[in-house]
Structures are given as structure tokens and as C-alpha cells.
């Protein structure tokens, strides 16, 4: 067994500590040590986006971040998207628009889509497509995913106005 390092982080708003070997990815640490298996592994090399998280507010693939790099940092995963038992509008729209089939890519898409809408509340189709280009989906052809994000942007803008 390799020697482990203790890492103190904030995960989805909670203080979380875990110990992991220095060469372990943050993805593996989150999955195997923190128990957040909503962080999915599709490739382990940053090419599919299934392990997307927000790290200090920045969208990253957690498979190409070391666990030890997370010391003192703030992490958001799909498990933290719904607040007080209410689904995030993106989550609800993904269900309502049938934007998922097998669902393995869904957590990554939700995190990436949230990152997009946080910085651009009114993206056009092309902006959505390029913002989600780091997330591979093999089931849907992306059609209903893009529509779910468009619907969410519209909903959230309407809500923001009222």
C-alpha cells in the first residue's frame, strides 16, 4: 500500500478530509474515498468529461487533477447540485426533455452546463454546443441535451426577472 497524504477540502459545501496516495487522481479519491460515485470515469485521460467537477469555481476533469492538489480547495460535484431536496433546473430539464439515456455522461454534462449558464445565462445553440464539446455522449446524439440546456437557460432567465 502506498503512503497516503491527508487532504482537507470543501466538498459540496461541507468540510471533507480524505487520505490518498500522492499519485491518485482526484476523481478516484472522490469516488473511492469520499464515496461520491456520481463522479464517473469514462477514460481517465480528460477526453470524455464524465468526471467533470467544479474546482474553486473552475470546470475541470477530476481525472487529470491529483487528489493532493485539492488541499484547501472547494469542490462541487453532481451530488451537490440539488439544494434542499429540490432538483436544480438543469436536472429537472434533463429528465423532462429525455436528455439522458444510459446516464453515465449525465453528471458531467450537468456540471459543464451549469458552468456555462453561470457565466453566460443566454447562450445560443452554438455556444452551448462548444461549451459541452468536452463531454462525450454516445446515446443521444446531443439533440435533447442541447434542448434541455436551452430550456433551462430560458427558465432561469424568466425566474431571474420575476
Amino acid at each position, binding site marked *: 500500500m502506498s503512503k497516503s497524504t491527508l487532504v482537507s477540502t470543501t466538498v459540496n459545501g461541507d468540510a471533507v478530509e480524505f487520505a490518498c496516495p500522492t499519485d491518485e487522481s482526484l476523481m478516484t479519491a472522490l469516488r473511492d474515498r469520499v464515496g461520491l460515485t456520481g463522479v464517473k470515469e469514462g477514460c481517465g485521460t*480528460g477526453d470524455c468529461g464524465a468526471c467533470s467537477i467544479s474546482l474553486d469555481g473552475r470546470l*475541470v476533469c477530476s481525472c487529470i487533477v*491529483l487528489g493532493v492538489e485539492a488541499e484547501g480547495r472547494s469542490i462541487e460535484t453532481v451530488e451537490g447540485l440539488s439544494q434542499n431536496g429540490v432538483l436544480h433546473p438543469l436536472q429537472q430539464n434533463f429528465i423532462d426533455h429525455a436528455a439522458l439515456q444510459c446516464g453515465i455522461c449525465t453528471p458531467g454534462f450537468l456540471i459543464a452546463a451549469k458552468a456555462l449558464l453561470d457565466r453566460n445565462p443566454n447562450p445560443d445553440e452554438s455556444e452551448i454546443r462548444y461549451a459541452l464539446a468536452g463531454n462525450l455522449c454516445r446515446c443521444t446524439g446531443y439533440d435533447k441535451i442541447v434542448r434541455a440546456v436551452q430550456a433551462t437557460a430560458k427558465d432561469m432567465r424568466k425566474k431571474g426577472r420575476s
Partner: protein
Amino acid sequence: MRYETPASAKEAAGLLKKEKGAAFLLAGGTDLLVKLKMGIVEPDLVVDIKRIPKISDIQSSAKGFTIGAAVSGAELGEHAGLKKAWPGVVEAANLIGSDQIQGRATLPGNLCNASPAADSVPALIAAGAKAIVVGPLKKRTVPVEKIMIGPGKTSLAKGELIEAITLPKAEPRSGDAYLRFTPRTEMDIAVVGIAISLKLERGVIKKARVVLGAVAPTAIVVAAAAKAIIGSKLDDKALDKLAAACSAACNPIDDKRGTIEYRVRVAGVLAKRAAKVAFQRAGGSL
């Protein structure tokens, strides 16, 4: 594997220098962690520079920009001043991987990974960027084109690291552009990349720099291509000469990403397109 987070670039250099085993510098990690996962590297030491003060800052001054070694592509894209001055550099950096990769990938990382296909490197060279190289004992400033010497190889000595990249102040009536060819729209590696930086005087190209990527062991500065458009208003004849010079300068390989023939051909095609973008950015009219 030892993991260190030094407080200064000099300390980082000392750690790298002292390590007898395999030592690696970690900034964005988008290449290092892939190699780790694939078992291509087995580090004894990883030096994470992101805790060094100011290493994640972009500083602008009368002389230009100093971009810290840990500044991510996303941060470059969000910097209005840099985008306005060197749009070609920023667009090249922002073509590397997805938004997720952009959240981490850095310019020195792209440079020191030393892939012939690195997107930001031709743009940096065309812009006249310099690397501030820190060693255990001294600091030196090196033009970016002197860093990479071959696939996977750099001119940095053991213990040396890049602390920052500097870009000069953009001259009036100048413009730069970077274009690459990939089969997909995103998430791809350049089959051919080309950066062009130029300056106009009364609508005529006065100065130019043309740099090709992915068509030779390193990014290459093509003086003949620059010469082909200097003195012109980017008319069709100049563009044809530019394309021919770029194709002639290619020394590519056949690999899974493209054939020699294809790369040579497309280098000329992209050269014309990139030149037009840079020309218009400089205020020229076609």
C-alpha cells in the same frame, strides 16, 4: 511519489535540481496526469507550482504582458486586455482541449510538453513571446522558439522551469491569428497549425511572422512565407506565394492523425485563411 508545493520558483528549481529520480513539474497537469495514468511516467517527485505567489496572475504594463506559469487557458480567455492585444495567442491557447482542459492547461505546460502539434506555441512565437526561465541559481529570458528542440525535448537544463511568459505590447495596426486543422470541431489535436502576426503601414504589410505547427519536429518560423506577404496588401498573388512557401517549409510525418501529403497541402490552405484574419485584425481591408 513525493509531492511538493514550493513557495517560490527558485525553491521549485532547487527541488527539481536536487531530485535524483524522475522529477516533474506540475502546473495544469493536463499532460502529466495523462502520462501518469497511461504508465508512461513514474515520477519520484512532482513539484506543484500553483502555490507560488503571483504564479497565477496576468500582469499588464507599458511593455506588454507577463503571464504567470500557472495561468489557465480559461483565465487567458477572460482577460479582455490580452484578448484585444493578442487575439491569435488567446485563440490558440483556447483551442487546446475542452472547457474542462481550459480550466487547467497552461502556456508553459503546452510549451514544455514539447509536442510538435502544440496549439499555443506557433502563436506565441509569431507574437514574439519570451519565456522567463528560472534555475536554482539564475534567471534567464529565452525566446519561446528556443525552448522546444524536438518532440518531447526542451532546451531547459535540469532544475530549470518557466516562471512566466511575456508578450510584448501589441504595435498599432498589428494583428495576429491562429488556425488549425482538426477532423472534429473540438477535442482534437492539430493536424496542421499556423500562426501569423503582422503589422500594416498605410494598408501594406510592413512586418510579418509566420509560424507552422504539427508539420515538423518543432514549430517552425517560415521566413520565406513572411517575405511572401511583406510589402503586399494580401492580394491573391501574395497569398499564393504565402501558401507555396508554407507548403514548401513542411517536413511532416505520416501518422494516425494525418499524412505527409495532406499536411503539406493543408498548411498552404490554412496559411491563406490565417493571413486574412490577421490582416483584417490589423485594420487592413481585403
